[in-house]
């Protein structure tokens, strides 16, 4: 989408979006995913008082978390499609503490 629509929907200034694109927090394509990401960055900055350095650290960790969740979802998908006994053992292992 164009910068104007993006800013309107995310409730942020065009100048701010340009800076976020520059430092690589949001991609220049400005898709729906970038919009959701910008809304999160806005909340971190405006509501939680996190500075841009802190936002970069938080988003990098969050991206790793999403990546790990996506990978785990796929692994569990393979497990679920495989053997019922293996599935039961994986479920039991996930319930074990630590």
């Amino acid at each position, binding site marked *: 989408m164009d910068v104007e629509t993006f800013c309107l929907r995310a409730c942020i200034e065009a100048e701010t979006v340009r800076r976020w694109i520059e430092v*690589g927090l949001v991609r220049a394509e400005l898709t*729906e995913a970038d919009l959701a990401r910008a809304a999160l960055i806005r*909340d971190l900055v405006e509501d939680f*008082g996190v500075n841009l350095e802190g936002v970069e650290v938080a988003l990098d960790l969050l*991206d*790793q*978390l999403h*990546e790990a*969740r996506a990978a785990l979802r796929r692994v569990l998908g393979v497990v679920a499609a495989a053997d019922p006994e293996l599935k039961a053992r994986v479920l039991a292992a996930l319930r074990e503490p630590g």
Partner: protein
Amino acid sequence: MARDPYAVLGVARTATADEIKAAYRKLAKTLHPDLNPGDRSAEARFKEVSAAYDLLSDPDKRRRYDEGEIDAEGQERPRGPFFRDRPEAGTFRWRGTGRSRPSGLQDLFDDLFGASAAETGFALPGEDVRLRLTVPFLDAVNGGKARLTLPSGETVDVTIPAGTEDGTILRLRGKGLPGIGEGPPGDALVELAVAPHPLYRREGDLIRYDLPVSITEAVLGAKVQAPTPAGPVVLAIPPGSNSGTVLRLRGRGVARADGSRGDCLVTLQVVLPPKPDRELEDFLRRWEGGRRFDPRAGIGG
């Protein structure tokens, strides 16, 4: 009526602006949906807490609320959309400019799959993405091209195969989400919806439509121009044709993969001139054959 915003944030009615901000930050950090991607229940609580904060952090709104001028509803800024709800959320580490690094999961997969995994690198294929594309009727019948924007923002030109049916799924290899490690990217699955046409109807590889003809053309026969998806043709109307007469135009229908085409079936509709014609009326009053013919003979009911 929304709950009392002071109770939602857990602060006294005499709390200072700083105390309100601190209470909000403490709660919001544990409730923000994007900071709790796995907790579906956090979203409703987060919205309630942020609505309370939006009201109490604005001195004017807070005063009017305290004086009973406004209630706690409808004072909040919209929140979201939330990044965790995007299917692309797990792919951003590859897409950022200069922030890309190898997967943070490498060591885990190495533990799980041993040294061979460590040597070759763990790989998982990327997920497929699903899209829908509306195709003009004639592009589906004759084949054509369409431009499509993928969720990644990339635009691709796709070929609509000749004879495409409604609901056909095109697979664009490698246009889905990226894989993990050396894993190949997923595919984009594009479902094609064929738009209706004002004249043509489609039955498999047949095209049907109604062609209006004058009473003169129907009775005496004529050569008329008739449209088909493969371009207009001259159609011979045999003498004595009727409304409902079906004429077949071979090889003028839906294109097939082998280059041939189905047929086009034209149903004639005899249409009288829009204004009553004195000469025609005079003739019909005198016309004996017309009086003797009963078109309803043998009709049941």
